[in-house]
């Protein structure tokens, strides 16, 4: 008996050993045939925080793209008479039946006879089950897919679900956050993309040609960098007409963020081009008869694209904060359009905050997003740097 147990263990041990040694060989072979970007990806995947950040951001972006389906309401919808309703509590333990599937109670507003204020009272008589894919009014997801279901809800008008409570106009803050994310999360990409174009063009000209052009561009960069960002943003956005549509303002803000944000990138590109153009592989390409254009696009740009990606990743949170700041100051997105900045505007009032603290929840979204981008940026930087410890 004992012997057979031993031999089985041994077999298992050998089996595991085989798997490992086989994997090791595979990996070894794989590495030799791996391109530079594949190597970066392998290293990136090993970076735990970055992987975590990527997952969280994926969820955030996904939910805000499909906010029409995930959010129970729209950002402008006023839901019955639920002004300043606190977040709905979700229960799992029923008073009669013990543990059960999640459910909510309905609430109703009652006047407190002493303070003469309306207070929400939970009515525990009925348990409303939380259901996935509940039926709803017909709507169009992303503006073109006809749908008749929402991700979750009770399916009953008497028992609404406000995950993060409601605001002074009885709008669901959870829905507003998801829909506001469409502006706040994507303004970063737009801004970074534009500043990437401006920055790499000007930085590229500066670095490759040098001389007087280089001097002029670099002085302009220094000038822009020496002015604090917020006054610069404010100055630019003051020039945006108030009567523009939400879409127009959105693009205007993207432009403003890019106009202020390209300088750092221009410097990175210039420095890299300057050092790379005298590298031996660039020299070798020239010796082979390659044109300037081929040298730049085929040899120089790919050599520092990973640095660019890191730089851009780390620039996105700055852009997101920029939009939030502008909208918070009332210079960005104008109501009824919604962004995380306009949501925070509602949290400006101290009395509101004291009585209805759930108005601060959008802050958490801003913080988490910025943090996650920084995690990813760190991970990419470690992965792109061939001299890092791993």
């Amino acid at each position, binding site marked *: 008996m004992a012997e057979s147990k031993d031999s089985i263990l041994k077999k298992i041990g050998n089996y595991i050993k085989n798997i490992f040694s086989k994997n090791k060989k595979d990996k070894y072979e794989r590495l030799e045939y791996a391109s530079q970007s594949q190597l970066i990806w392998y290293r990136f995947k090993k970076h735990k925080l970055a992987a975590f950040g990527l997952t969280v951001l994926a969820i955030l972006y996904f939910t805000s793209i499909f906010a029409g389906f995930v959010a129970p309401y729209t950002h402008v919808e006023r839901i019955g008479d639920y002004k300043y309703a606190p977040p709905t509590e979700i229960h799992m333990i029923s008073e009669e039946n013990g543990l059960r599937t999640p459910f909510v109670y309905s609430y109703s507003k009652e006047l407190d006879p002493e303070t003469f204020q309306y207070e929400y009272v939970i009515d525990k008589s009925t348990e409303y089950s939380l259901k996935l894919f509940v039926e709803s009014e017909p709507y169009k997801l992303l503006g073109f897919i006809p749908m008749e279901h929402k991700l979750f809800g009770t399916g009953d008008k008497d028992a609404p679900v406000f995950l993060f409570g409601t605001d002074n106009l009885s709008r669901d803050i959870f829905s507003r956050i998801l829909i506001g994310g469409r502006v706040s999360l994507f303004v970063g990409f737009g801004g970074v993309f534009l500043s990437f174009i401006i920055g790499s063009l000007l930085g590229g000209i500066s670095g490759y040609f040098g001389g*007087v052009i280089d001097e002029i561009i670099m002085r302009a960069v220094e000038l822009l960098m020496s002015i604090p960002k917020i006054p610069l943003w404010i100055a630019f956005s003051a020039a945006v007409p108030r009567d523009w549509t939400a879409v127009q303002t959105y693009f205007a803000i993207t432009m403003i963020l890019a106009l202020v944000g390209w300088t750092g990138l221009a410097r990175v590109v210039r420095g890299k081009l300057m050092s790379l153009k005298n590298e*031996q592989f660039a*020299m*070798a390409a020239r010796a082979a*008869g390659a044109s300037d254009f081929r040298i730049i696009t085929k*040899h120089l740009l790919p050599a520092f694209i990973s640095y660019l990606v890191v730089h851009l990743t780390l620039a996105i949170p700055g852009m997101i904060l920029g939009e939030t700041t502008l909208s918070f100051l009332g210079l960005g997105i104008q109501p009824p359009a919604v962004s995380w900045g306009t949501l925070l505007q509602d949290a400006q009032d101290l009395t509101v905050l004291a009585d209805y603290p759930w108005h601060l929840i959008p802050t958490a979204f801003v913080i988490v997003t910025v943090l996650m981008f920084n995690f990813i940026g760190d991970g990419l930087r470690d992965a792109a740097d061939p001299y890092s410890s791993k």
Partner: protein
Amino acid sequence: MQQDTLVEINDLKQYFAIEKGIFNRKVGEIKAVNGVSLKIKQRETLGLVGESGCGKSTLGRAVLRLQEPTAGDIYFNQEDEKVSVLELNNRDMRKVRANMQMIFQDPFSSLNERMTVMDNIIEPLVVNNIGDKASRKKRAGDLLEQVGLRREYLSRYPHSFSGGQRQRVGIARALSIKPQFIVADEPVSALDVSVQAQILNLLKKLQKEMDLTFLFISHDLGVIRYVSDRIAVMYMGNIVEIGEREELLRNPYHPYTEALLSAVPRPGQRRNRIVLEGSTPDPINLPSGCIFRTRCPYAEKKCAEQKPEWENVEGEHFAACHFKDSLELKGIKNRKRA
């Protein structure tokens, strides 16, 4: 054996401006190559030796026109036609470039890490529109075998190779468009000593197989001695002596060459190393007359007043020194050929 001249360099100069301040005020010039004249013969290896910073690499790059020289002429003998390289426009330059290639010093930065070995090797073919995909691949594989690597390595990336292997890839790349003339800029100085000999032997073998002409740059006299047919000695942007290998080593004409040779250890002989006084002069303010006079143990008054003449000799032994015929200089004697 009478050989034709393949490359002729006349009074070549490469200056680098030193700029300061926001208005790019020119405050001086580094005279990295300061009037070099040379003839390189068909199928020979001309070794170029000199201290670090004397302008060897700059000369090598200028000869291939990888940098635009400040002044001078370069003639290249292409299909019995003497082409003035510096006067060519871009299109004609490409054609000539296919005949002149370079092997670089650092095998870690001269290959593009982001391209496979194959893409690195065939780049000269691609930019010059030679052959189609299949023929290029075949050629790259043949070249790999010729430089002693396995054909299967074609689809690998450079990061998985050792320095010596990478240098072999670099050599294959330089050979891919069948050049006649190759500038090898310190091709072994970044490699382990044990690998150096292998690469040098490979270059010698390839030279025979493909009728190559080399300008071989190194600061290591041992390496130069091993590969060269003739040797040129460079000091502060000038060639100071040139001659057949054995003749120059045994019987140097220039005091700087003597000092260089004295630094080579000689078995069975007491070392009489000539230690040069002072350091190399400031390349921005070169000394008057003979550039070597600040460190030359034989310097006299004439050396400060008059610059020794340089003649663009072919196959003869020549030195730029006023006293080349009267000085009794020590070379390396009684030593078997390496």
